[in-house]
């Protein structure tokens, strides 16, 4: 089947099999390998992308479900060569170690901001609760997101 959707701002027409997962469409067909696969059952959040403003686990979404949708992946976060404030704060506060959870983590945080530009610390923790990180202990990530809210 053919679907038409926007990926990181770009209109895309693609022919796919009905049982293809969104993560495979992104990684295999569109070569957007920033989105990671960690568990394939929607528990780790490494594959988080944004569909119509909501953070979703792309391993649990069928590719055909994004027909007519607006999809954002980690590759779409920076404006050209300029990192977004959120990305810059991930650097500044040491929110990255191995970096495997980072794309999903960024997308969950970004989706939170789309919905609520001034989230509380608790709302931030809830937003990234579904993103597992084994390296950072989450504190620097929470700090990076909090600082993005306050514009520090």
């Amino acid at each position: 089947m053919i679907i038409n959707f926007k990926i990181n701002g770009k209109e895309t027409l693609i022919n796919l099999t009905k049982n293809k997962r969104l993560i495979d469409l992104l990684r295999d067909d569109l070569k957007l390998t920033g989105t990671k696969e960690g568990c394939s059952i929607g528990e780790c959040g490494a594959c988080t992308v944004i569909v119509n403003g909501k953070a979703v686990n792309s391993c649990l979404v069928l590719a055909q479900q994004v027909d007519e949708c607006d999809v954002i992946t980690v590759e779409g976060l920076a404006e050209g060569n300029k990192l977004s404030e959120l990305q810059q704060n991930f650097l500044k506060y040491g929110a990255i170690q191995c970096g495997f959870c980072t794309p999903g983590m960024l997308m969950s945080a970004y989706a939170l901001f789309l919905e609520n530009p001034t989230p509380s610390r608790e709302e931030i923790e809830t937003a990234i609760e579904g993103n597992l990180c084994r390296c950072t202990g989450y504190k620097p990530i929470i700090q990076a997101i909090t600082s993005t809210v306050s514009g520090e």
Partner: protein
Amino acid sequence: MDNSFNIVGKAVIRQDALEKVTGRAKFADDINEPGQLYGVMVRVPTVHATIDEIDYSELLRVKPDSIIVDSTDIKGSKKIGAIRQDQPIFSFDKIVTPGDVIAMLVGESEDELKSLSKKVKIKFTELPALTDPTRSLEPNAPKIHPQYESNLIVHYPLRKGDVEKGFKESDFIHEETYTTQLVEHAYIEPETVLAIPLEGNKGIKIIGSIQNPFTARKVVASVLNWPLTKVRIVQAELGGSFGGKDDTMNILSARAAVAALKIGKPIKIHYSREESILESYKRHPYILKYKVGCMKNGKIIAMKIDILADGGAYSSMSPFVTWRSVVQATGPYDIENVWTDVRAVYTNNPYTGAMRGFGSPQPIFAQESIMDEIAIKLNLTPDEFRRINGFKAGSFTASGQKLENHDVNLLDVLDTAIKETNFTSKWKEYKSKTSFNGYQLDKISDTNAEQLILKKKDYINPNKLLWKGIGLSISYRGCSLGAEGIDAAEAYLSVQNDGSAYLLSGLAENGQGMRTTHSIIAAEVLGISPDKIYYLETDTGLIPDSGPTVASRSTLMGGGAVKAASDILRNRFEDFLRLEWKLKSQSEFIFKDGFVSVNGNPQQKISFSDLCSLAYKNGICLAAIGWYKSPEVNWDEHTGQGSAYFTYVYGCQVAEVTVNIGTGQVYIDKITAVHNPGKVINLLGAEGQVYGGVTQGAGYGLWEQVTTDGGKIRELNFDQYLIPTAKDLKEIKPVFVEGKDVYGAWGGKSLGEPTLELTSAAIANAIRNATGKRFYNLPINLEELLLRRKLFPKDLKRGSS
């Protein structure tokens, strides 16, 4: 902050952060090779069996052109292992644990291969399964590896003084037994490897999520029966490891290499989470028996320790892991008489090996729990009791090693933690509140159903269910490999004629931030910005074998090598400038902010880039190799005496918790982690180690457990295996008490593992402080706290049967 440094000790942003934050970083599964095929494993759903026949006929009937790779394709070593070669690349004689792989099917579609894998018919004879390590050494226990005399993998004795005499002279004896559980590394990136056969005689290139490229190379070369030079291992960006991407990755590399050479095409293997948890090794479960002889004045004079480690189906790193345990089992206490036995045994359980902490979190949980119990018995606070026995400069360890030549600042670290948390008054206050009438945790048991029904008298005001507690734990940790093996590392630094530089060390970036740490060291010596340093790709063809990236040794050993290389170049530049500027031989220089000037004459200066250009034009070699070898250490296998490690680090963690004694839930309010890592090189990286290590340690203490049912793992994914989330730890506070040391780069030593090893013990002691009850078995989850036992699905009998 130490003002003599320009960059060292400050917070420096990771060099690899830009690619990681934009999704451009290439992890192993992000790399593909044209024409690559996939490898899918064939396993047998059994725990212990002899393999009678592997029958591919049905597979070949369904798909005649199936590509099968199994042990018959291996020309070199069919079994591998660091000490004992007991682990097959492909099983051919026995199945000893459910993760075992018989064969690999190769093709274009993984989905098709997975269904085809069911067509391989394996005839096997089931053997009795051995899943209880306490039965492993019984004479009639099933033998896991019949080529060895018994199921004993290793036994380390340690004998110091006269322990029986010590017990006789003690005012009292305290004895307790503790157990720890099987846990999974849970790196978020599952294992992936890509093997690419190279043209002509060039051999094979392997790119993967590999923690120890040199070990992987050794294993692959031995399996292929090839020289080391023909196997090139390139490390992809590694998505977490924590000790976990060693053996498993070496074996996957070997399987991919054998297949790639058999068919002449690139082969990729990438594991699902379920396969990762099924086949990869885990942390050793321990059973720890401690007997402590103590005087009324609080002085410990004798300690007898008996530790049994479940090595699972293969020996793997058990001989190394348990060696660290025997060295450190008493904890950081000066005790005259010590008798320790540590044994690791085979079972049919998932095999166990290296995991961050490496044989220290288990004894620390036991020993620090006991220290608190004895302190309470003596009516001392936990810190008072530890001050009486804790290591000071000149103290002797259990192996008879005198602690000297470095800051033995255990008690400074302890005092800092006590002050930072206002420990003593909190501890006393919470302790005084723990006599709680009407709630008898211990008496609840489902053997008497009547007791499970709450009566009116059992009603507790919900506000009274939340109890606060504070607890601490302390440790010392030997840095790097110690007497485990050869300990040396290399670094290559090549400055370009524009003042930028290439750097590469023989250790690996596993996500910990090593590349940045090493770059800071080189930049500090040369007085340039770390941005000027370009860290090269880890490739076994480009740098000498520097041993594995384990044992929190990358800053100490790799950093030492980088500093050595940087010093060589700096000396060369200084010699050149003395000639060029016609200076006296004793004249000194300042390398700072991209300029080099004469000390005492700041007018005479040159930019670092101009200096490089000038030196290059004068034919000066701008590249250097630095080598860092550890000082001599020694160990007597029979007595367990010797200088086990050349230097040590010290730590203290304080846990503050709230326990809901109605639900058994433990809330972590704050962990204060005070560590002496020697010299902090990158503050941002050091704090990151603390946050991450503490969080893993909390998971170990409270939630995480891989359980097996007849040897088969129940928790194969993150829906059942629960690691801490962003909501599970309220606050973590890293505090560094730096200590002077002559080793490594300016005394920068170890931090990665100390941060994890202390947490579960501190939490256990905080729970004790809150509830007045001691818990002996990790994890201290809801069931443990309320029922003093673990509950598994198999325990629940439902229905009429």
